[in-house]
């Protein structure tokens, strides 16, 4: 059975996409064994006053290869002379993936905001 242009196009695109997918999976299968390693980047410059508090956006990145589940992060800052903590949980953090989060304090903190990883589950 002779194939025409449309059929050839479908077959070529199919082959390329399968090759790409299998290629990525094979490469990841060989170098994807580092344990989960959540890291955080606070974006203080984008911090702003929200209705219920001072909001500090941040990006959590898993720089490991394996996924982490129930990642709990705790931010600590000094607000009006007293230490205040803000805790939140990220449901799933796949290897290499970024998740946008935001911490909130009762008012704009003075000085540094520090973030600690409380823990996570390995799915």
């Amino acid at each position: 059975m002779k194939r025409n242009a449309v059929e050839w196009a479908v077959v070529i695109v199919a082959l390329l996409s399968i090759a790409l997918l299998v290629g990525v999976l094979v490469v990841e299968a060989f170098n994807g064994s580092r344990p989960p390693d959540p890291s955080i980047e606070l974006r203080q410059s984008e911090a702003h006053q929200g209705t219920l508090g001072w909001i500090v956006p941040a990006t959590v990145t898993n720089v490991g290869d394996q996924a982490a589940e129930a990642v709990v992060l705790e931010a600590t800052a000094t607000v009006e002379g007293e230490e205040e903590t803000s805790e939140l949980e990220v449901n799933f953090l796949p290897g290499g993936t970024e998740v946008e989060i935001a911490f909130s304090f009762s008012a704009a903190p003075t000085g540094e905001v520090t973030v600690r990883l409380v823990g996570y589950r390995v799915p």
Partner: protein
Amino acid sequence: MNESLTESARDFIRAAAGGLVIGLPLLYTMEVWWHGFILPPWKVLLLLGVAYLIVIAFNAISGFRRERTFTELIVDSTAALGLGVVIAFVALLVLGQIDGSTSLRDAAGKVGLEAIPIAFGASLAATELGGDESGGRSGTGPFERVLVGAGGALLFALNLAPTEELVMLGIVASPGLLIVVVGATLLLTLALVFYADFGGRKRVKGDGPLEHPWSETLAAYAVSLGVALLLLWAFGRTDDASGQSVAGMTVMLAVMASVGAAIARLLVGGHDEAGQDK
């Protein structure tokens, strides 16, 4: 020439639409997205490989291009799988499950898992739902029906295997209840295939060991149990699980798998009434 291009485009659109129809429920299942990055990449590859073999088997048995060669069979099956990969990727993009912050591995895992039902749907649409087929398909043998049943089992069970509901059902079930479920599953599939008379397909009994309603039902059930166990293992449900909960989950998933196998066997039909295909 133009006419053949139009027809090919129509075939392609039908396959893509069929793939999407079958694939949509799983595209909307968050456990599948999660398993895309939780599962080790080699397990996703293994599932894709099994799915590819089943697509080949399905196309070989029920394909409408009866005159095609082995090479054409492989090319058609590859096209169905590739279509699944492309559609899965585009659909996940549109649903916002793949975006700039998704890692390559996460995206590849999701696309790999979601491509499987879409590829099944595409080959199903290409072979079974074409309007241009002029009836008169020659019947299929019992072994082929069981093989096609494995494809139906995988397709149906794939919808449940990643979900938490299955774990709950499997873990709480007592051995007595499981025996009841096994019996009910066998009766249900026996009735579906041989007595419900779907599509008016008449079955003719042959002499082979697999050509009796009960033996075919049992063979299809055994295959369904195997498919269920394979999926449970692939989705990490058997890790650290007790023997009884594995048995429970397998039996519960096999209900869905058996119904899939039954419907697939109905689709490819049985012997012609005249029984020309001995």
